[in-house]
């Protein structure tokens, strides 16, 4: 059976308060420092890989990041196979060494969850904080509006 992600982050729209702290901590997680102030003061600070979607007047707000699709279009569209599924975790990861910045993945992503890293000129997306093992946005959401769910066997 083909490998699929075992975990996915779900947003609870009814309690998302639109504070954007998930974006801020996402920047920290991918900045190479543990200090928020340092991370923000860096010239080449990374862009957030989670984006808070907002409707006019804040009537709807929720955070969206890569869904790590079971049948991803981005990996198929990638011309250098930089966008690939991690064999251990099943997460969709972009290998920045291979990425040439053609943005094919951005064109095909149905969620708009892939963004351009303006500094490195590569595709940038949520890696579910694969290094630490625990997504920083989930940990730091002040209203518990983001949840990391282990997926059921049958949906793997």
């Amino acid at each position, binding site marked *: 059976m083909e490998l699929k992600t075992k975990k996915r982050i779900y947003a*609870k729209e*009814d*309690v*998302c*308060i*639109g*504070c*954007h*702290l998930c974006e*801020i*901590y996402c920047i920290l997680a991918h900045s190479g420092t543990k200090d*928020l*102030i340092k*991370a*923000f*003061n860096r010239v080449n600070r990374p862009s957030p890989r989670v984006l808070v979607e907002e409707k006019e*007047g*804040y*009537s709807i*707000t929720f955070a969206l990041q890569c869904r790590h699709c079971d049948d991803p279009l981005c990996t198929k569209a990638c011309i250098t196979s930089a966008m690939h599924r991690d064999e251990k975790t099943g997460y969709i990861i972009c290998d920045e060494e291979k990425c040439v910045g053609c943005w094919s993945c951005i064109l095909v992503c149905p969620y708009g969850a892939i963004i351009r890293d303006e500094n490195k000129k590569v595709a940038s997306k949520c890696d579910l904080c694969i290094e630490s093992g625990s997504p920083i946005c989930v940990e*730091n959401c*002040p*209203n*518990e*509006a983001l949840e990391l769910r282990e997926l059921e066997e049958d949906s793997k």
Partner: protein
Amino acid sequence: MKSLYESDFLVIRDETKCIRCKVCVRQCANEVHQYDEEEDRVVADSSKCVGCHRCVALCPTKAITIIKNPLEFRANYQWTERAIKDIYKQAETGGILLTGMGNDKNYPIYWDRLLINASQVTNPSIDPLREPMELKTFIGRKPERLEFDSYGNLITEIPPQLELEVPIMFSAMSFGSISINACESLARASMEVGTFWNTGEGGLHKKLYPYKDRAIVQCASGRFGVDIDYLNAGAAIEIKIGQGAKPGIGGHLPGEKVGEEVSKTRMIPIGTDAISPAPHHDIYSIEDLRQLIYALKEAVSYKKPVGVKIAAVHNVSAIASGIARAGADFIAIDGFRGGTGAAPMRIRDNVGIPIELALASVDTRLREEGLRNQVSIVAAGSIRNSADVIKAIALGADAVYIATSALVALGCHLCQNCHTGRCNWGIATQDPYLVKRLNPDIGARRASNLLRAWEHEIKEMLGGMGINALESLRGNRLMLRGVGLNEKELEILGVKHAGEGI
């Protein structure tokens, strides 16, 4: 007109810590923080700050602090800063001063002048971790005597009771005055801990019907949301005569807060002001009250306790005696520190009496008249911690109501601006964007944690007194001693001064 009212608070931002993430800008419903794109910095308009600390709590780098505006008026005992500022406000608006939460003036707090006893040598204290400790409380009329048949089965019919695992209930706060998420948080905490919450005069929202078995439904002067389904839904009915924060006056939910959901729940048209008259227009005497009590009992087939809530006023003991005689199963007495979603400031700060004195005097009066077993007493308005609960029980309360403490548990910072409807904590607001800020999952957890924490503390203090059941403390004023109280205060409270033995 140029305002002479200077800011109450100053917003101080540490520029070395501010990362311009704009969380404060998004979170302040009072629009204190603004991002200046030209300068690339966040600036604050302190004049709009109410001191609710929402920005402080959410700032990821802790760059913000709020301080009291240090601007000094010329020192004057008569003309304090508050007194002067209130006049500026009224001179600029021509209106009644409105405020939220409870009386914050410097009146005596009798809880802090009462001390609790403990066992030493002659009677053993009890360790609640090793021995059973009973806090179970029943609210309702108790029979004069119990009769049993020859097999030992109880034959006396016991009037309907509310069964509480802890002697603490959530006081009346309507959906309208607080958000649906705040109501749901308290309702769920009541279910989890085994106590009751109170709908206030807001009706019972459809979303809250799953928690109806733990709801006390209120019937107040505006009769909002009252129909037979509502009365039958609750575990008990409370007739609201008065409220500690504003004795003698009614309520007013402005039309702009009456949106679709509030409208449906209160059973009034969208956008209309929900005005609760000062009196019940069908109650002008104890006899009239008796009629309403029995009409409600009849409506629910005598299966639920019917209580009456009053504000603590000068003649409270005689009024309570009348209420007991009118057939109420419980009396809730709300002291002058009791909170509110909106009240005229002069009334909040000057009308009513302290709950400690009212409670003691009602308990004494009902005992003297042989009525005490007929009615339970619920003390409300100023309970801040478990020690206050213990003292209230020792002064004669069967249970207490908490509301301000419960809201503080949900995140309230007592900024006293509930009446503006712009609660940054998602509690006293109907703005859907603000309501979302209170996640009922978190709220329910915090509120039930508070009750559990108090439960542990009450057990510890009871054990220290050598008492293993709360029932043995009820009205046991020998467990209290006063400090710094005069003869008259001690007489009314029915307690001895510290240093006096038994």
